[in-house]
């Protein structure tokens, strides 16, 4: 039996609770509960009217049973009856039951709302508070509809009791959060803001939560709260600990209110008014100073309350991110906490520093704590604290400390908790890629990652290393050598075999000169792992073998023998069997030339954001600090390495056997491989693409457009249904573009049609059907289309109206440049998928620079011409921030991709790039000179173009400014 039973005890309830507690088993408990439920049900149904006390007791028992975790499906009506009791505790229990067990029964809601309405207008503050508590606890839309108009009135009325105001404020907050559309502050706004000045600290404490929420949604309407909040804060911060009486908590004046004030200020930028700002900075300084004072109490409550304010102040300082002095002081304070004996403080300091690391003012200061943080990673006993340390290391990483941090994270991985390994692996992979100065370090790091934590290395990670190796020829030899060595280990992780197989298949030739890694040695090494691997890895190895046949004809006999063996050619797995059969056939019937074309080295992957980063973001959800972007362009990692997101295995097999088996056998007669360019096949599959749904798209999609200014081949567009690949070639003023439409689904696209048009004022006479000039036939040939604007002629034939599931159709555009142009032609694609009409419009990447002829010239010539083109309209110039990395090789590759000649030893400043070329159009030739001046420190570029035609200078300048 309970020791205490305050207010009015309910003996029956206490007995019931005791009984439940004495139950020895779950079954006994359920039995007892069922007995009680039957009893209560009979009482509620009985003829005899129950008195208020009994009703209250039974409702309370039902509540208890519900809170034990059992379902309750009756008693609501009795609880509602209690609401209108004039006995306080009966009313109170009724409200409690409703708050916990609210039922959306509309009949009941009406009754409840009626009871609440009565209590709200009773002018009895205790009853009013009960009613408001109930609304705040339930917070349903029905209640908002009924009371959202009334509560603001209660909140600001002059004669409302303080306790009622407090409840009204938070009640309104709950309704606003649930149904913001129903809570209209309008005329009340200024009076609500002025509650910050209320004499009663409790009213301010409650009201500020409401004001903070409203301010975050409508900052402008509530902006007068800033100066009020600052002066309130200032009064609290400067008060003696005894001034605030019961609002002082363990010698800390009003800690809850202080935190809330500091939180409210984080909805706004720093105050514009100098005096207000000065006062606020003073407050923040005082709070930082107080942290250094000796504690007024040894109780943890004292230090917690004090530090709660301190951390909130630091959050505000970080939010402003404009006071270097305060930021550095905050960082030093957190630095002290990093070594504090309280685990809680160490945890919060690590967390808070993570955000400081992304401020340019405090990034360096944060970095000074690297040893402490590394130590925390090694010695903290609580995994959640170690996790914070790992997060902070990740956030403070930049080029200067990347090697150290990555090494520490790798060594931590060997013993890390299973729960955080996968995330750690992703982080190491991202840092290694992002801050790779030399790519041999990057390759080493990822291979170490696979060695140490192979099980946690997701596909994205090993796909990525392959994408990077393929896109960077300077690291290919090293990668081949390193994987070869790594594969020597008797037990190596399957992911290592995948990477090894892929890289040796592509670049094994680079180390084949060394007799220790001769082709046969390489093959035997790979094949020694074969039998231990899963089916997908074996499939990958088979592809590596066929690539070996192309790279090293001397291995052909050995590999054919392996392919011919029963365990391959009769493998029970269809994929393996098919590969074995096809590869064997391919190797025996195709000529060396055909083999070399089919098994050509993988082309570079298209540039995209690292899929690993996307995965980490997805894993952590929004609102997570991803690597600080301080020193680096936003997508530096992705651009530097020019990596794509395709899964290399699928891409590889697609490239190997560019079409399914029927075509493979057709190799003998013609050579359709040449017609469908090798890269065409690999465009089909994109494992990681997360493009939006394939719904109707009305707007012009030009995401892909800018990626093609400096290159001619790649994936122009992709969604869940359709992928469009491009391959194009240009000579003088003529171009030919192959479009590959791939149906990614298993369902046929019907009424598939494409239209090329030219936007702008000339549209009216662009599209003219033009009969193809062929001898007359009974069945007319499809009509060819030609758009001819004054600038561009584009000629094409319609595509087949049906695209089968998984199939790819090709369309060829012939392009002629008449004169220079700025607008790109548009491609409109329409088809039916299922029943729905899909409509996609894209900009075709036909840009003026495609018609460049490179021109080599000496420094003297260059500067002489440069000077000749000195009229203002001949020059176009832009200064812009580096959007991607400033890696020299990448820049050079892009400038070459532009089509001009990259002139070495011309510019006196070796950091700069100069190029020259002639734009070939039918009507004229336009000479163009280009100069690109990077400023690595400021992460800026200055781009200057000079040409004999102002429109050309301008257009090129606009296009190129988006490329670097």
């Amino acid at each position, binding site marked *: 039996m309970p020791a205490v039973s305050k207010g009015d005890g309910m003996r029956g309830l206490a007995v019931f609770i005791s009984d439940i507690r004495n139950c020895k088993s779950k079954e006994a408990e359920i039995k007892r509960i069922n007995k009680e439920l039957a009893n209560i049900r009979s009482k509620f149904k009985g003829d005899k009217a129950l008195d208020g006390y009994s009703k209250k007791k039974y409702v309370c028992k039902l509540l208890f049973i519900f809170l034990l975790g059992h379902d309750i499906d009756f008693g609501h009506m009795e609880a509602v009856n209690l609401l209108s009791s004039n006995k306080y505790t009966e009313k109170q229990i009724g409200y409690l039951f409703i708050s916990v067990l609210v039922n959306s029964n509309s009949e009941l809601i009406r009754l409840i709302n009626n009871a609440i309405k009565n209590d709200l207008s009773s002018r009895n503050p*205790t009853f009013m508070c009960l009613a408001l508590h109930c609304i705040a606890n339930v917070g349903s839309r029905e209640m908002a509809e009924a009371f959202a108009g009334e509560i603001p009135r209660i909140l600001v009325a002059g004669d409302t009791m303080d306790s009622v105001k407090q409840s009204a404020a938070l009640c309104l907050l709950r309704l606003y959060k649930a149904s913001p559309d129903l809570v209209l502050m309008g005329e009340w706004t200024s009076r609500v803001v002025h509650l910050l000045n209320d004499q009663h600290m409790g009213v301010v404490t409650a009201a500020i939560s409401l004001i903070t929420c409203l301010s975050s949604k409508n900052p402008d309407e509530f902006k007068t709260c800033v100066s009020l909040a600052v002066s309130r804060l200032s009064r609290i911060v400067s008060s003696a600990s005894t001034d605030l009486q019961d609002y002082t908590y363990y010698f800390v004046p009003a800690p809850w209110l202080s935190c809330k004030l500091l939180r409210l200020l984080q909805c706004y930028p720093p105050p514009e008014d100098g005096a207000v700002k000065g006062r606020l900075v003073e407050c923040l300084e005082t709070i930082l100073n107080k942290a250094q004072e000796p504690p007024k109490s040894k109780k943890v409550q004292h230090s917690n309350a004090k530090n709660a304010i301190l951390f909130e102040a630091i959050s505000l300082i970080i939010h402003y991110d404009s006071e270097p002095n305060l930021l550095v002081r905050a960082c030093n304070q957190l630095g002290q906490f990093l070594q504090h004996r309280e685990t809680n403080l160490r945890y919060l300091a690590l967390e808070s520093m993570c955000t400081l690391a992304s401020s340019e003012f405090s990034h360096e200061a944060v970095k000074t704590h690297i040893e402490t943080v590394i130590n925390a990673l090694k010695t903290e006993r609580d995994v959640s604290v170690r996790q914070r340390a790992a997060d902070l290391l990740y956030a403070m990483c930049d080029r200067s400390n990347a090697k150290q941090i990555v090494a520490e994270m790798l060594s931590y991985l060997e013993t890390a908790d299973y729960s955080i390994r996968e995330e750690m692996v992703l982080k190491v992979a991202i840092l290694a890629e992002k801050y790779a100065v030399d790519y041999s370090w990057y390759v080493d790091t990822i291979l170490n990652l696979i060695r140490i934590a192979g099980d946690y290395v997701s596909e994205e990670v090993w796909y990525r290393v392959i994408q990077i190796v393929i896109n960077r020829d300077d690291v290919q030899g090293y990668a081949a050598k390193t994987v070869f060595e790594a594969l020597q280990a008797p037990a190596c992780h399957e992911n290592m075999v995948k990477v090894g197989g892929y890289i040796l298949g592509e670049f094994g030739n680079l180390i084949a000169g060394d007799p220790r890694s001769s082709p046969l040695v390489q093959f035997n090494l790979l094949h020694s792992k074969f039998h231990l691997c899963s089916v997908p890895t074996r499939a990958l190895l088979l592809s590596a073998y066929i690539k070996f046949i192309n790279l090293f004809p001397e291995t052909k006999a050995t590999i054919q023998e392996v392919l011919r063996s029963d365990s391959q050619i009769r493998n029970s797995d269809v994929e393996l069997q098919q590969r074995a059969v096809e590869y064997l056939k391919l190797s025996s019937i195709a000529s060396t030339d055909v083999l070399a074309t089919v098994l050509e080295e993988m082309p570079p992957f298209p540039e995209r954001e690292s899929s690993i980063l996307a995965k980490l973001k997805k894993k952590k959800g929004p609102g997570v600090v991803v690597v600080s972007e301080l020193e680096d362009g936003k997508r530096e990692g992705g651009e530097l390495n020019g990596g794509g997101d395709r899964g290399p295995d699928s891409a590889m097999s697609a490239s190997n056997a560019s079409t399914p088996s029927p075509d493979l056998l057709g190799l003998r007669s013609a050579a359709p491989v040449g017609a469908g360019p090798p890269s065409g096949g690999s465009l089909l599959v994109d494992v990681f693409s997360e493009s939006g749904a394939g719904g109707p798209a009305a707007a012009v999609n030009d995401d892909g457009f800018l990626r093609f200014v400096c290159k001619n081949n790649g994936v122009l567009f992709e969604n869940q249904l359709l992928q469009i690949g491009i391959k194009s070639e240009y000579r003088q003023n003529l171009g030919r573009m192959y479009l590959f439409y791939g149906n990614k689904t298993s369902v046929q696209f019907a009424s598939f049609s494409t239209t090329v048009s030219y936007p702008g004022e000339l549209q009216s006479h662009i599209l003219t059907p033009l009969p193809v000039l062929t001898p007359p036939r009974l069945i007319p040939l499809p009509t060819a289309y030609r758009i001819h604007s004054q600038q561009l002629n584009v000629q094409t034939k319609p595509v087949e109206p049906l695209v089968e599931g998984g199939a790819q159709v090709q369309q060829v555009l012939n392009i002629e440049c008449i004169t220079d142009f700025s607008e790109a032609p548009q491609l409109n694609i329409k088809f039916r998928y299922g029943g729905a009409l899909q409509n996609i419009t894209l900009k075709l990447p036909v840009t003026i620079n495609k018609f460049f002829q490179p021109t080599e010239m000496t420094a003297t010539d260059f500067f002489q011409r440069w000077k000749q083109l000195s009229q203002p309209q001949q020059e176009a110039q832009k200064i812009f921030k580096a959007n991607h990395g400033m890696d020299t090789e990448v820049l050079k590759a892009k400038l070459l991709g532009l089509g001009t000649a990259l002139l070495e030893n011309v510019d006196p400043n070796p950091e700069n790039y100069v190029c020259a070329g002639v734009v070939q159009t039918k009507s004229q030739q336009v000479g163009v000179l280009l100069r690109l001046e990077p400023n690595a420190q400021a992460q800026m570029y200055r781009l200057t173009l000079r040409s004999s035609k102002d429109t050309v200078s301008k257009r090129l300048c606009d296009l190129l400014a988006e490329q670097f």
Partner: protein
Amino acid sequence: MRFMLLFSRQGKLRLQKWYVPLGDQEKRRLGRELVQTILGRKAKMCSFLEWRDLKVVYKRYASLYFCCAIEEQDNELITLEVIHRYVELLDKYFGSVCELDIIFNFEKAYFILDEFLLGGEAQETSKKSVLKAIEQADQLQENIDFQMRLFPAPS
């Protein structure tokens, strides 16, 4: 704050307060999972943890765990003191509170919490004011009872 849970070392829920609308099933599932997570932690560990997309702040008092799930922008340390103040309020009201008091007078535990926190935000942080409100209500009850006994309502 999203919700507050009180549970015993055996994992029995003693009080649950939800400040966000959730179905009963979901509440039970979240409660069960979080209780297991916290009971699985060692004594000296940090009072804060990331759990799903929430921050969780918890503290153990004798046989009871007090646990709050808060929003991303909420302050962990002040939440720890929210818990402590609530414990103080219970302690003062019951006089040296123990788990049994909360089991047998669970409705009082809810009433006290409602006076202190409303909609997940601090309504009144003064210990005196909260207790005064509760005492007044108890008083009110006794007065009404007294009056009722003297002058029975006509039926």
